[in-house]
C-alpha cells in the first residue's frame, strides 16, 4: 500500500460522512429554498414546484420574519458586548497576581458552560418566577418592585440575555485568560519603571496586546448568539406575544411544526447570509484597526 492510497483510506470515512451528511444538505438547503416544499410535497413529490426566489420575497414581506430577526439582533447586540465584558472582567481578575485560589475560581466560573442548556434553562425559569423567584426576592431586598420577567414582552428578552451571559461567559474567559498570560511580562515591568498606573498599563499594554484575541472571541460569540434557539424554546416558548421568537425558532416552527420546508430553508439561508456578512464585516474592521 503506497502513501497516496493510505492517505485516501484514512480520509475516506470522515470525508464521506461530512460530504453526504453536511455538505450535500447545505447545497440541498439552497435548492429546497427555491421550491414550495410543504405537507403536500411531503406526501407526494409530484406536488413539488419550483418557485425561484418567491420564498425569499414572501419572507421579506412577512412581519413575523422581521420581528424574529429584530429579536435575534437585539439578543446579539445586547448579549455579545455584555457577555464579552463579563468574560474580560473575570479573566482580568483571575490573571491578577493578587488573586488567591485561582484554580478553584477558574473551575467554578467555568462550570455553567458545561451544563446542559435545557436543564439550567429550567432552573432559571424558576429564578425568574414573578412571585417566588429568587431574582425578584433579591431585587425586593434593595427596594425594587417585582418584575414580571417572563410574562412581560419588554422583560422576556433581557431575562434570556441574562441567562445566556451566565451560561456562556466562562468560555471566553478561558480564552482571554490564555491571551493575558501570553503578554510578555517585560512590557509591564518597563511600564512600571516609567511610573505608569495600573489603569494606564491596562489601557496601553493589556488591551492592545489582547486585541486580536478579543476580535476572534467576538466573532465566534456573534455567530454563536445568532443561533439562539434552545433558550426561548424552553424558557418562554417564544412568548409572551412572540417577543422572544428568534430566527431559528421561526425556522423550526415553519419547518417542523407547519411543514413549510421550502420557506423554512429560505429562513435558514437568510440567517446564514446575515451571519456571514456580519462576521466578515467584523473581520475587515478588526484588520483595519490592527493595521492602523
Amino acid at each position, binding site marked *: *500500500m503506497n*502513501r497516496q492510497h*493510505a*492517505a*485516501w483510506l*484514512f480520509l475516506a*470515512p*470522515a*470525508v464521506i*460522512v461530512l460530504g453526504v*451528511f*453536511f455538505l450535500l*444538505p*447545505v447545497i440541498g*438547503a439552497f435548492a*429546497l429554498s427555491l421550491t414550495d416544499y410543504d405537507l403536500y410535497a411531503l406526501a407526494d413529490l409530484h406536488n413539488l414546484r419550483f418557485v425561484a426566489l418567491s420564498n425569499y420575497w414572501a419572507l421579506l414581506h412577512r412581519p413575523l420574519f422581521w420581528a424574529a430577526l429584530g429579536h435575534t439582533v437585539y439578543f446579539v447586540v445586547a448579549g455579545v458586548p455584555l457577555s464579552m465584558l463579563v468574560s474580560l*472582567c473575570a479573566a482580568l*481578575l483571575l490573571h491578577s497576581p*493578587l*488573586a*488567591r485560589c485561582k484554580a478553584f475560581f477558574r*473551575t*467554578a*466560573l467555568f462550570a*455553567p458552560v*458545561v*451544563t*446542559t*442548556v*435545557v*436543564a*439550567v434553562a*429550567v*432552573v432559571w*425559569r*424558576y429564578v425568574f418566577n414573578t412571585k*417566588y423567584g*429568587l431574582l425578584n*426576592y433579591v431585587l425586593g431586598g434593595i427596594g425594587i418592585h417585582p418584575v414580571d420577567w417572563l410574562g412581560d414582552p419588554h422583560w422576556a428578552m433581557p431575562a434570556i440575555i441574562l441567562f445566556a451571559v*451566565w451560561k456562556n461567559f*466562562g*468560555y471566553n474567559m*478561558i*480564552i482571554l485568560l*490564555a491571551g493575558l498570560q501570553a503578554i510578555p511580562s517585560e512590557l509591564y515591568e518597563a511600564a512600571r519603571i516609567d511610573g505608569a498606573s495600573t489603569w494606564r498599563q491596562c489601557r496601553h499594554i493589556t488591551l492592545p496586546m489582547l486585541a486580536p484575541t478579543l476580535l476572534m472571541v467576538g466573532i465566534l460569540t456573534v455567530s454563536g448568539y445568532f443561533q439562539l*434557539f*434552545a433558550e426561548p*424554546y*424552553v424558557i418562554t*416558548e417564544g412568548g409572551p406575544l412572540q417577543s422572544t421568537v428568534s430566527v*431559528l425558532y421561526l*425556522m*423550526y416552527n415553519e*419547518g*417542523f411544526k407547519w411543514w413549510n*420546508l421550502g420557506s423554512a*430553508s429560505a429562513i*435558514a439561508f437568510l*440567517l*446564514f447570509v446575515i451571519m456571514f456578512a456580519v462576521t466578515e464585516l467584523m473581520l475587515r474592521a478588526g484588520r483595519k484597526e490592527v493595521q492602523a
Partner: protein
Amino acid sequence: MTPRIAKALINGLLIGGTVVALFPIVWMLSVSLMQPGEASALPPPLLPAHATLHNYQELFLRAGMGHYLLNSLLVSTAITMLSLALNVMAGYAFAKLRFAGRDALFKSVVGMLAIPAQVAMLPLFLMLKPLGLVNNYGGVIVPAMASAFGIFLVRQYARGIPDELLEAARMDGAGELHIFVRIVLPLLKPIMVTLAIYTFLTAWNDFMWPLIVLTGQNHYTLPLGLASLAREHATDTELMMAGSVITVLPVLLLFLAMQRYYLEGLLLGSVKG
C-alpha cells in the same frame, strides 16, 4: 489604593462571581430534594426542611427518566467512539501524509466550520427519512460520525509528530496501517482524550437536531425528555429540578474529573486564526 485593599477587592469580586455562577446549580440540587410544593414559599427556602428522594423516584418510576438517561448514554457514547475514530484518521492524514489535493480538501473542511449546522437540518431530515433514520438513534448518530472541528483539532496536534520518526519506520519496512496504530496513535493519546470529552459533552447537551429527528418519546435523550416534561409539569418546581440534576450531573462530574484535558482542547480549538 493600597495593595491590601486591592487584594480584598479582587478576591471579593471573585467570590461574588463564583456565588452567582454556582448558585443556580447548587440551588437546583437543593430544591430537587424538597417535598412537592415546598419551594413555592416566601422567602424562597434555600435548604429542604426534610430532604427526600421522592422526586427522583417519581421521575424514574413514572416519567421514564431512566429510559431517557440510557438513550443519552447510548447516543453520546456511540457518537464519541465513532467520530473519534474517523476524525483521528482524517486529521492524521491531513497532517502527515502527502497526497494530491490535500491543501484544497483541507481548506474546504475548514470552510465548513463557518457554516452553521442549522442550514443543513431541513434537507438532512428529508434525506434521512427514506433511509429509515428518522425517529431512530441512527438519525442522531450517523450525521455526527465526523466533524470538521474534530479533524481540525487532530490535524493541528498531529503536525507536531516528527517526520523522521515516520520515515525511520518506513525504512524498516513498516506498512502505513502499522505505523498509524503502533506509532501515531500512542502519540495522539492526549488530543484523543480531549476530543473524546469534548465530543461527549457536546453530544450529551445537544438539543435542536435531536428534537427534530427524534419524533417519538421512546428515543428521547435527556434534554428532550426534560424539555417535554417542562412543558407538561411547569408548576412542579421540585420535580423539574430533580430532572435537571439528572441531566446535568453526569457531564458536570465528567468535566470536573477531566477538566485539564477539556480546557486544553478549548484553547487549541480557538486558535483557528
